[in-house]
């Protein structure tokens, strides 16, 4: 451990890139801890499955909100107005009838139209269903009556699918017509234009029971959302990107530990005992090298189980007898003939003691750079499997997001954010570990590795 720290501090002093990669890795670790603490495992699984109405308030295929900074024509943001934040005026209109009026007002200054608009109702009542009247008022004072009906306990009114409104706007979608300058619609060859200004949606709820109550929520789905945008299932990509971090780091770390340490020990044991043990290890390594690693992984993923932990186990098992056994063996052979080993043998140290206390510690500095360089390999391996459609079935991973984007034709349809965000995170993670590893390699094994 001391050696590692000395190596790292030495590397930082000599190579400025190391400082950058160490800080990136620290940020990634911090992000992982934040992810796991802020959204527990069980919750993220449910969120990413996206069952039911979890993602009813988010738009589809929305770019991240910050992309507006680079656009000359700002895309509408997604916003949500709800009766719990708005002042509701309630008046008693009869012995057992009440009228609650909520007025949602909002400024619409964008030049583009939103994707769609919805109003959600949650009604509480015993027997008599509450009645709702929706009225839309434009900045120039036009009024449109939209929805008037008795409510079910949980109901959605999709403004964009209201055909009665469509007829009033010469076939334009209601979410376009309601926000458009009336002179610009119905003109052949001309695109509808937004009428900027303050709009108002009035929700009048008539209830007929003591204690009956209606909550409403008005959602305007823009073309940008949040810090990372959304995908085809309306899922907030920020959650996937955030939770992809601990998954990627843990996967890379566990796979590297599992594969490297076993390889290392086996090489040491083989070299120490020599003879048959060594020969057998060598032959197994030669066979293992020629095994089609990825096709076998694919087979396991297809036939058995594509959980990330099963994959991890198979990867470790297949990597034990890897090519580095040969490298390690050559080094152990040199160490084996050193005088201190002979001394240990002379005073009667056991085989185990020699292997674990004398042989292995001597070569550990070589292991450390290999170890760090190995991490991105496995992080990308997980992503590769996910791109082939063998990603973990429940957890969000960067590779799975890339796969979703690829399947959804993100590159053809211009949803670049969907591809670039997970790709950038993969790149940053991979590069920072690789840069650190290569720098450590030059510190620990300085033979002709350049300046």
């Amino acid at each position, binding site marked *: 451990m001391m050696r590692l720290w000395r190596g790292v501090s030495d590397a930082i002093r000599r190579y400025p*890139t190391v400082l950058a990669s160490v800080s990136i890795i620290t940020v990634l670790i911090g992000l992982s801890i934040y992810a796991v603490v802020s959204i527990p495992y069980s919750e993220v699984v449910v969120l990413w499955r996206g069952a039911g109405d979890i993602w009813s308030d988010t738009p589809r295929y929305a770019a991240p909100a910050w992309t507006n900074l680079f656009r000359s024509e700002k895309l509408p943001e997604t916003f949500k107005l709800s009766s719990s934040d708005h002042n509701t005026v309630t008046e008693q209109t009869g012995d057992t009838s009440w009228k609650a009026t909520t007025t949602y007002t909002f400024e619409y200054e964008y030049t583009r139209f939103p994707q769609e608009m919805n109003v959600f109702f949650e009604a509480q009542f015993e027997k008599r269903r509450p009645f709702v009247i929706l009225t839309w008022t434009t900045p120039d004072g036009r009024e449109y009556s939209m929805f008037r009906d008795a409510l079910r306990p949980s109901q959605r009114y999709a403004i964009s699918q209201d055909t009665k409104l469509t007829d009033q706007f010469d076939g334009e979608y209601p979410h376009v017509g309601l926000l458009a300058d009336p002179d610009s619609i119905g003109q052949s060859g001309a695109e509808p234009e937004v009428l900027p200004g303050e709009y108002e949606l009035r929700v009048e709820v008539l209830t007929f029971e003591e204690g009956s109550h209606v909550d409403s929520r008005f959602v305007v789905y823009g073309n940008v959302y949040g810090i990372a945008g959304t995908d085809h299932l309306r899922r907030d990509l920020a959650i996937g990107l955030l939770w992809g971090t601990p998954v990627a780091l843990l996967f890379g770390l566990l796979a590297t530990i599992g594969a490297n340490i076993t390889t290392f020990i086996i090489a040491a044991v083989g070299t120490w005992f020599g003879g048959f043990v060594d020969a057998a290890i*060598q032959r197994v390594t*030669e*066979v293992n*090298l*020629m*095994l*089609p*690693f*990825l*096709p*076998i992984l*694919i*087979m*396991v*993923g*297809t*036939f*058995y189980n594509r959980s990330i932990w099963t994959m991890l186990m198979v990867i470790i098992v297949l990597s034990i007898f890897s*090519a580095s056994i040969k490298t390690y063996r050559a080094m152990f052979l040199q160490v084996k003939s050193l005088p201190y080993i002979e001394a240990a043998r002379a005073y009667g140290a056991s085989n185990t003691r020699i292997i674990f206390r004398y042989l292995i510690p001597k070569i550990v500095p070589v292991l450390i750079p290999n170890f760090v*360089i190995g991490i*991105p*390999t496995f992080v*990308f391996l997980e*992503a*590769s499997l996910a*791109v*082939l*459609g*063998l990603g973990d079935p429940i957890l969000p991973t960067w590779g799975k997001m*890339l796969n979703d984007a*690829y399947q959804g034709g993100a*590159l*053809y349809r*211009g949803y*670049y954010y969907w*591809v*670039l965000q997970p*790709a950038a995170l*993969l*790149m940053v993670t*991979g*590069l920072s*570990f*690789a*840069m650190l*590893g*290569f720098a450590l390699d030059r510190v620990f094994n300085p*033979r*002709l*590795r*350049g*300046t």
Partner: protein
Amino acid sequence: MAEESRTPPKAESAAGKWRVFSPAALRFARYTLIRGVALVVTVAIGVYIAVWIANMGGHVDEIRKAEIREAVGVSFRGNPAYRDLTPSEKRELMDAEIKRQVERLGLDKPFIGRSFAYLANALTLSLGRAERMSSDTGSKQVRSIILERLPATLMLFGTAQVLVFFVGLFIALFLSRRYGSFLDRLSVSLAPISAAPPWFYGIFLILIFAAVLGVLPYGGMLDAPTPKTTFGTVLNVVKHMILPLMAWLLSTVAISVYTWRTFFLIHSSEDYVELAKAKGLHSNAIERRYILRPALPTVITQFALTMIYAWQGAIITETVFSWPGLGRMLFQAIGMYEVPVIVGSVVIFAYLLAISVFLLDILYAMIDPRVKLGAKRA
């Protein structure tokens, strides 16, 4: 690779009989033969493991039994000869028929016996029939499906390998000559970009050159109305190969240059190089004879290792670029749960790895004087 040191005495007398051949040629032939046999054994072991994994603890047998039941059921339902039988008689006949089929295929015996038959079938590429996929000529034979896609993979990734080898060798030699220069330091600090696999760079390249600039195709091998002339077709294929090759180079060249440059530097610090310099030999001659020559076997071994990973990297790179080769076929097979094709592609990949390693071994034997001169190695 230690086999050749344990020379059987018989081979010595054989060398006496075949005096027409030089001892070096005989040693070379023996080395090739031993490596060949070792690789065949390796492939057999690999495929055998694949057979066991594919059997999923007997599930394949269950699937096949279900298929038999289904087929027998259909044949009974459609056959007018059985129409007058009572249901119980019919069931009895059906059960007997199913039992006969299961016994005929040996499904009632333990898997270990059949596993060797499967192994033999797999090694001879008698891989059976696909359930859903078919080759472009309409065949359902797994062998035809695989062999039809093989040329596309060989063409793209063969080119990629050759390109990486020569480009990498050239740059590494160039840099080892300028050890410590800015370019050398730059290439050393660029080595980490090899951490990302080719398909990853492929996504970026598609985004830049296909989606944004629109100058190169998104993927595939030929444009939809194929060009009429042969020359046009070749040009069209080349156009489709640019992006995958670029992705491949971006991902693999940096690390190859990094390692090979190190080999060259190690060899250029040897005493005999100093002596050659002192003798006043031309720097080109020193480089060719005293640096490149002794470093080449190590370079080739290293290249063989990267090649093993490369064939497998082809699977995803082809998927990303929609290249109609083995990798994309495997991807489609996963999507369709096409068991025979998945097993078949494991076999074909095992062969591909073995054959490329074998060819590099021969090259190694031709270059490495220790094989040629038959010096004993530790």
